[in-house]
C-alpha cells in the first residue's frame, strides 16, 4: 500500500537524519520508543485478535449491507453503532461511504458513519485505556459518539 510506504520512508529518513546529527540522542530515542512498544505489546496483540475475531464472525460486507437496508431515524443510529465498532481504514471506508450514499443512504447517516469510524473505537479501547486511563478513554469515546451524531445531523441539514 502506498500510504504505508510513505510512513516507512518518513521513518527511515527521520532515523537517518537524526543519526547523522546526533548518534547518541538517536539511540536514546530508539530505546525510549522500544520501551514504549514493549509495554504496549500485549494491548496491540489484544487489538489484533479482537479485530480479527470480530471480522471473522461479522464480515464487513454484511455490516455495510445491513446499513443500506435501514432508513429514517434508525439509519444514523445504526451508522453510529456500526462506525464505532468497525475498524475500516480510510482508503476503504470512503469508497464504501460513497457507494452507500449513491445507493440512497441519507447524507446524515453517511456523515455519522464516516465520523464515528474515525473517532470512536470500541475495539481499540484496550490500547487507548493504557495511555489515558479507562475513565478518560471512556469519556472521550462517549463524547465523540455524541459529537459524531451532531456532526452528521448538521451536515444533513446544511447539505
Amino acid at each position, binding site marked *: *500500500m502506498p*500510504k*504505508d510506504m*510513505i*510512513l*516507512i520512508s*518518513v*521513518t527511515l529518513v527521520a*532515523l537517518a537524519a*537524526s543519526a547523522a546529527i546526533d548518534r547518541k540522542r*538517536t539511540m*536514546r*530515542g*530508539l530505546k*525510549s*520508543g*522500544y520501551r*514504549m*512498544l514493549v509495554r*504496549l*505489546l*500485549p*494491548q*496491540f*496483540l*489484544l*487489538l*489484533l*485478535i479482537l479485530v*480479527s475475531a470480530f*471480522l*471473522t464472525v461479522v464480515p464487513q460486507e454484511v455490516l455495510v449491507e445491513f446499513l443500506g437496508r435501514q432508513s429514517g431515524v434508525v439509519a444514523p443510529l445504526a451508522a453510529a453503532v456500526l462506525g464505532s465498532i468497525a*475498524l475500516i481504514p*480510510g*482508503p476503504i471506508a*470512503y469508497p464504501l*461511504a*460513497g457507494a452507500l450514499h449513491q445507493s440512497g443512504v441519507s*447524507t446524515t447517516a*453517511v*456523515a455519522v458513519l*464516516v*465520523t464515528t469510524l*474515525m*473517532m470512536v*473505537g470500541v475495539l*481499540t479501547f484496550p*490500547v487507548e485505556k*493504557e*495511555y*489515558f*486511563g479507562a475513565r*478518560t478513554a471512556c*469519556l*472521550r469515546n462517549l*463524547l*465523540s459518539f455524541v459529537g459524531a451524531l451532531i456532526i452528521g445531523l448538521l*451536515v444533513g441539514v*446544511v*447539505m
Partner: protein
Amino acid sequence: MRKPWPIPAGYILTIACILFLTTAALSDIAIGRRLAGELSTFSSKMVLLVPCIFILIGLLDAWIPQTWIERHIGEGSGLRGALYVTLLAMFQGGPLYGAFPTAHLLQKKGCSKRNVFLYLGAFSSLKIPMTLFEVSFLGWRFALIRAAIALPVFILIAEIMAVFATDPESRLDT
C-alpha cells in the same frame, strides 16, 4: 497506580488464539481458516506500521524539548497552540490508535489537556490524506461542510475533556 497482572490479558489471548488455530487446522474447521486469513491481513499491516510509529515517537521524545511544548502548546497557549496541534494532526496519517502514543507523549511533555484532545479530534477527521479520499468519493461540498462542522465540535469536546480527564498516568514510562 494499579498493580499490573502477572500475565497481561493480551498474551493469554494470544496463546488461546494459537491453540485454537492449531486445533482448527488439525480438525479442518472452516472458521479457523477465516480467522487466520483476517489475522494475517491485519497483522501484515501492523507489523509494518507499529514499529515505524514507535521509532518516530522515540525520536520525537529525544528531540523535542519539553520547554518548547510547554511554551507553545501548553496550558494558556491559547488559539495559536490550538492551531499548532490541529496542523500537526492534519499532516499525519494512519489509524487513530497510531495517534494515541503521540498524544500521550505530548501530554507527558506538558501539552495542555485541551490541546491533546483537540489533536486527537483533528487527527480523526481532518487529516489531509483522508480528506483527499473523502473529496473524491463524497465530493468537495460534503468534505468541506463536514470539516467545517466537525472542528467546532472537536473544540467543544476538547474543552469538556480538559475539565474531566484525569491527569496523565505515568505507568507507561519506565
